[in-house]
């Protein structure tokens, strides 16, 4: 009893060697600490995006000046980049499956694929932003400019952080430091990545697909 390790972080190399696998860390809920922690962070992040989305909805159609969504949006283009982001969730699942099987080569491939798909999405966003900017929309043009750029910008920042995380995992995998018992590291990154994708589906629906009232000029 006395020597049960109760608190160290899961998957720490120190307890990888011997028999001390994950079962040494039975928790009261049955969910490991790190996974529960990630779920809680994501719950908190829901409110973060929720507040921005609510602001967007509140201000929708209030503008009387500057270009608006109807003028600017290129739905087919954004649909394509959205599809790419969604596909990255699939590759993420494949990466997790690979490490759970102990297939390190496929793990590396799918991690890289996920990061690249994410980067393609970000590239699309950068292109979109510059394009809108060229057509006269900036942060200070109108409420649409403010709410659109800040909401999608913070989402883009989340994706970028995810890409850095994935690339770091890929780097570790390339050095052979991600093995089957570390699969939870991939799982947690996956939780984050899927969350960011789901948030994008909401944002895409709210901003691009729901018809805009008002502002005939836009």
């Amino acid at each position: 009893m006395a020597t049960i390790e109760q608190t160290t972080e899961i998957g720490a190399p120190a307890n990888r060697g011997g028999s001390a696998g994950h079962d040494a860390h039975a928790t009261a809920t049955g969910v490991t600490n790190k996974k529960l922690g990630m779920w809680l962070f994501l719950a908190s992040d829901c409110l973060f995006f929720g507040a921005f989305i609510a602001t967007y909805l509140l201000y929708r159609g209030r503008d009387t000046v500057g270009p608006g969504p109807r003028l600017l949006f290129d739905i087919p283009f954004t649909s394509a980049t959205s599809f790419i982001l969604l596909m990255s969730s699939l590759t993420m699942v494949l990466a997790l499956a690979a490490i759970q099987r102990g297939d390190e080569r496929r793990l590396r491939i799918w991690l890289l694929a996920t990061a690249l798909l994410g980067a393609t999405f970000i590239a699309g966003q950068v292109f979109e932003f510059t394009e809108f900017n060229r057509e006269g929309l900036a942060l200070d043009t109108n409420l649409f400019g403010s709410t659109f750029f800040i909401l999608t910008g913070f989402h883009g920042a989340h994706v970028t952080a995810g890409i850095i995380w994935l690339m770091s995992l890929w780097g570790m995998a390339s050095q052979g430091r991600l093995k089957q018992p570390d699969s939870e590291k991939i799982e947690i990154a996956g939780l984050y990545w899927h969350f960011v994708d789901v948030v994008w589906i909401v944002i895409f629906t709210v901003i691009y697909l729901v018809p805009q009232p008002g502002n005939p000029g836009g």
Partner: protein
Amino acid sequence: MTTVSGAVTAPRRALLLRRPTKTTGAFSWLTTIDHKRIGIMYCSLSLLSFLVGGLEALLIRLQLAGPNGTVVSAAQYNELFTMHGTTMVFLMGMPMAVGIANYFVPIMIGARDVAFPRLNAFGFYVVAVGAIFLYSSWIPGINGVPNGGWFGYTPLTDTPISAGFLPGRGPDFWSIGLIMLGIGSTTSAINFIVTILNLRAPGMTLMRMPVFVWMMLVVAFLTLFAMPIITVALIMVFFDRNYGTLFFQPAAGGDPLLYQHLFWLFGHPEVYILILPGMGIVSEILPVFSRKPLFGYAVVVFSGIAIGFLGWGVWAHHMFATGLSPVAISAFAVSTMLIAVPTGVKIFNWLSTVWRGAVRLTTAMLFALGFIAMFTIGGLSGVLHSVVPSDTQQTDTYFVVAHFHYVLFGGLMLAVFGGFYYWLPKVFGRMLDERLGKWNFWTMLIGFNLTFFPMHFVGLYGMPRRTYRYDEGLGWDVWNQIETVGAFIIGVSTLIFLANVIVSIKFKRGAVAGNDPWDGRTLEWTTASPPPAYNFADVPEVEARDEFWHHKYTEDDEGRLMPLPSGGADAAPAEEKHGHGIHMPSPSIYPLVMALGLLPLGYAAVYHSFAWLGLGVLVLLFGMYAWAIEPATEPEPETVTGRTPEPVH
């Protein structure tokens, strides 16, 4: 460190700073990930903030001591009340609860540490860095002391710097500083929830947890969901000021009221974040000094949870004067009256706990009783605010200032002082002096009431809050004089407390506490005072609520208490073993490094400086990667060389 061998690990270690191994000295505090030490650091920071915020309050009171005060200018006055409010809420109140909980929640649930020890240290350093950042705005030449009030209403705070109603960079420092503090409190909230849900000792079911743990669980959820909302509001303010966005610019269709909604959607849960820990503390103190279990444990717990839910549905009672629709106003008035019910229920539970108990009037108990009385007064004036016609008269007058000081000072602060007298013997192994303690309590109670009770009157006589000066002959003069005298009595009382701590603990004049000085009921009293690094040599098996009590006492047929022969603190095995073989996570410097990275990032935001940005990103990334690579726990040999737990006493 050097005893660790292994060809695999050697090359990458070279990348990192040396793993800290010392367990004493200043550096060991900077690298500690022991939840108890982090708790002490949180409480120290918080106490320091209380002194600083208190000094600001004394300056405010000096200025208002008589009509036409000349102690500070109007601009300085704005800075003083803004920094006072911001300090007391974010740098004193929240860190104090987090600190006490950091120390005691793991011990109370029978755990050896928190779920994420390094994240715990990170959270603390982020709060410390946020405090430094906020207060650095007072450096001459920076011209950026926050001055838009603790809730920073737009459009006052968010007009672009060029056209600002508020000259200087005050709201920039304020918004960025608060975002930092939000990061710190979110990480600690996640840590608490996971710790409480996952690391309870065998048998410690949810309904056996001490009420303080329950309240901190609710607080952690409130923090988790409230912080992102204010973060969004602050981001919008910051972008409005710095990058020309139009979120709260009425001329472009933006709506300043949206800011108020967002702020109070955070702000009302925030007041429960501040008061629930206080309720938890008195729920621990009262049963011990009444020698009775808490009356209606389940009711207290559920009303705490109810407050946690209802707290999200009352925010607009802060906005009754803004012209919301009658329907909205009525709904929020009703929900506000409703939330008084679970609060009132708790007051009756506490009173019933004390009723017919074998009451010992120790200082801790006095503070807890003081809490009940003062908090009730604050609660009553709170209910008055829910009556809309009445509130529209009171809004922005000193009546409101009186109300929230009765709940925050009379509530939170009195509970915290009670908690100090109750728990510091456990933390430092020495009792605080009871005679000084009683002086501390009575001067505090008298000073507090002298300061804040007259504010009800001047408020009803129409004295607006946040006024730096008033004419004579308005009927406010005498009351204000009394308030200032009262404030200085509070100051004296605080000095008595500090003297008590220094004499009893620093100079070791206090009696040795022993494991269980109060005949306590909960698990923290089964360990040594101070507890060893690993808390428990044997992880306890819990069989009852008030576990420790049931090891000491049973009841005879008539319900009288009977001591159990084998019970008592001395039977606890904690001291006999020395914790060999208990493997605790190793210290780490990277939480500090990573948190320090936020400081340059803050200045980068305020000054739009790429140099600061680069520096911040560099430090942050270095800290982050080094942290990720570093194992949470160094391999076994080190327990022998570097981290043998400190001997008890």
